[in-house]
């Protein structure tokens, strides 16, 4: 079967029917195939285990306790060995959640719910996590970068390096960063190396590890 021609099969979990349908419409509009649409995290886990799903879009707060069922579902999927892309949606931009989501492994993302009004962002995010990449909402990154710290490591970065760092944290690859900031790939690579050096971070070949490391650094206090 032709890998490129087959549309991504996506499962959606959200307790609000209205949003579920809206998300499905947006994803289908972006050329993805919505194979399941359920109201709880547990149902989603079953759907994924049944097979035939490439990526899942989950609300974080769902029944029964309306706390962090989405993340729990993600963690249970990863624990059972599933590596499908998982994108979590939340009403709040909470760095602590973003860190937990990233910590679950590669192919995960965390976006504000209101991004559904930006179909491209949502569709690209699903595609990114499905291909093992990481996505973090820019607002979360903004919060983290603006967090005050006793010994601010970001003070050592240049203005340009900061911009690059923010995109790194959002899950952009070096190529993506080059495209977004209109820079050459080599330049971006130089910036990234410099940033990692200044922040005492290890260069990781694995993309999501880089995101996690950056987020952890930003979130650490």
């Amino acid at each position, binding site marked *: 079967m032709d890998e490129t021609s087959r549309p991504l099969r996506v499962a959606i979990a959200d307790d609000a029917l209205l949003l579920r349908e809206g998300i499905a419409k947006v994803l289908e509009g972006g050329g993805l195939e919505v194979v399941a649409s359920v109201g709880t995290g547990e149902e989603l886990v079953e759907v994924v285990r049944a097979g035939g799903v490439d990526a899942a879009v989950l609300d974080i707060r769902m029944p029964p306790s309306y706390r962090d069922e989405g993340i729990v579902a993600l963690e249970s999927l990863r624990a059972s060995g599933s590596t499908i892309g998982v994108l979590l949606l939340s*009403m709040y931009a909470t760095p602590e959640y973003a860190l937990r989501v990233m910590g679950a492994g590669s192919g995960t993302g965390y976006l504000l719910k209101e991004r559904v009004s930006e179909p491209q962002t949502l569709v690209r995010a699903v595609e990114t996590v499905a291909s093992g990449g990481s996505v973090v909402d820019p607002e979360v990154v903004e919060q983290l970068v603006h967090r005050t710290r006793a010994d601010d490591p970001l003070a050592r970065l240049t203005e340009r390096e900061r911009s690059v760092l923010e995109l790194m944290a959002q899950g952009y690859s070096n190529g993506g960063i080059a495209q977004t900031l209109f820079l050459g790939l080599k330049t971006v690579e130089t910036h990234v190396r410099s940033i990692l050096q200044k922040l005492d971070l290890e260069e990781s070949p694995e993309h999501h590890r880089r995101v996690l490391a950056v987020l952890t650094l930003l979130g650490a*206090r």
Partner: protein
Amino acid sequence: MAPGRRGRIIKRTIAIAAVVALSLTMEITGFLVSPESERPEVSYATLHAMVPLVFAACAGVAWAIGPSPVPARLMVLFPVVWIPLPFLRVIEDLGWLWPLLYGVHLWWGLLTGILVLLYPRGDFGDRLARVLGAIALVASVSYLLGTVLLAEPPAALCDCAPNPYRIIDAPVMAGVIDLGYRFIGVVLALVISVRFLVRWIRGSVPARTVAFLMPLALLAWATTLAAQAVTYAANATAPQVLATVSLVAIASIPVSFVAGISHTRNMRARVADLMRITREGADRGLWAESLARTLRDASVRVYWWDEERGRYADASGDPIEHDPADRNGDHSLLPVASPTGMPIALIRHDRVLTDNMRLLDGVSSALRLSVDNGRLRSEIERTLEQVRQSRARIVEAGDEARRRIERDLHDGAQQHLVSLGMRLRLAANQARDRGIEPLGVELDGNIAMLNDALKELRELAHGIHPSLLSSGGLALAVPELAGRCPVPVEIDVQAEGRLPEVIESTAYFVVAEALANVAKHAQATRGWVRAHLVDHTLELVVRDNGVGGAAPEGSGMLGIADRVDAVGGELTIESPAGSGTTITVRIPLGATD
């Protein structure tokens, strides 16, 4: 000292000085004008002169410490009517005066008798006492009238001028009145003495030891009075010894009186001690003991009213014995009731104490006060506990309401606005597909505005109740709070597992308010938040290195202190000027379930 009191003391001093002077004058002049052959021995005359002085001195004391001024007035009057018979010679030429003096020269007996009847409280205790007093008064007045109207000059005593008031010549009648009066006097004195003696003998051991002086003096007085009356009637001269004993007995009566009231006063001081015990809230077992000490009566028992069973029982709960009041007529019962008439207790005490109503009043007041105090105390404690619980419920209800509002926003308004944004995006895309670019731009602007509104709503909902607190507890919510603070804050949260919701939210709001103050007022460059679980207590410390001087009553902190209080915790603020601010909160986890 109040001017009225000072005036009273001056008046009393003058009165005492005046009667002493008068009495000494009568004694000395009488002694001097007597012919040598008739003069009594100097020692006897001195003793005779001492008696009114003792009365005058005791009057001073009785005025100072007695519950009533009447006994003191009687004592101060005593020297005036203690007329030495030789004094008649001094005034033998004053025909208008000597019959009057002769008419009252035995009235000291009246005063002494009434004094004894008034013992110890300063009023006639019962009907018998009033009757005896009335008889003595009527007899004395009759004697005065009889003497003034009938008496011839007593030849044995003086060469007196004729009695100008004399209306008829009736020597037999005068003699009868004279003897009759003395007879009545002796009888009254004996009755009073015997009555007193009987009361004394029936008294309990402690009561008797205290008041032994008075009956002894009375007995001596009554016997000598009787003996004297007999010798007088027989027209014989009383033996010197008898006269001397009589004088000593008379002089010891006011002394006994003063000693008695001073003892009562002492009792009242002990009641005051009892009041002190009352104020400190003695328990029931100690009450009987304290009462026994106060009343000097080891037989005191206290029976408490048992409301449930409707009976009296002692402190250990044993019901009252069948007839506790009176097995041999030795004991009386004193019921103590609250002002509303509810029975409180029953005090069984020596019957003799009944004579000392003031003391018993004091004791029952103390008991009533103690019980009332205890009742008020427990009522206040109960009310306070109710208030505490209701306040905790209010706080919990407030928290619950905040959670519900946030959830309603999350599931309602926020979801609707998000899906509205999605529809607007679809509409914008369709507009562009149909080539209506301006509409697409218009809709893009609307989406941006909608997203701004969503962002505000998000902040609002977060402020009402942080969803992170519900899902992640303090370990996640406190770092998130600190991240929002413009001042760098070091975090140290070590609270494994989740705490009760109301404690988590209380701690969260404490940190939020404290950090808001750090950001707004402290001018700090650094803050610290520490949350540890120590011995089942959440210990929360928020500290900064700012200017200090934070007022604990600042409205924000006050609200926080109230919240902490409501969950049974305590909040302290240390904020010395220039040395930063430290807010410490301790909340016991067991305070709420």
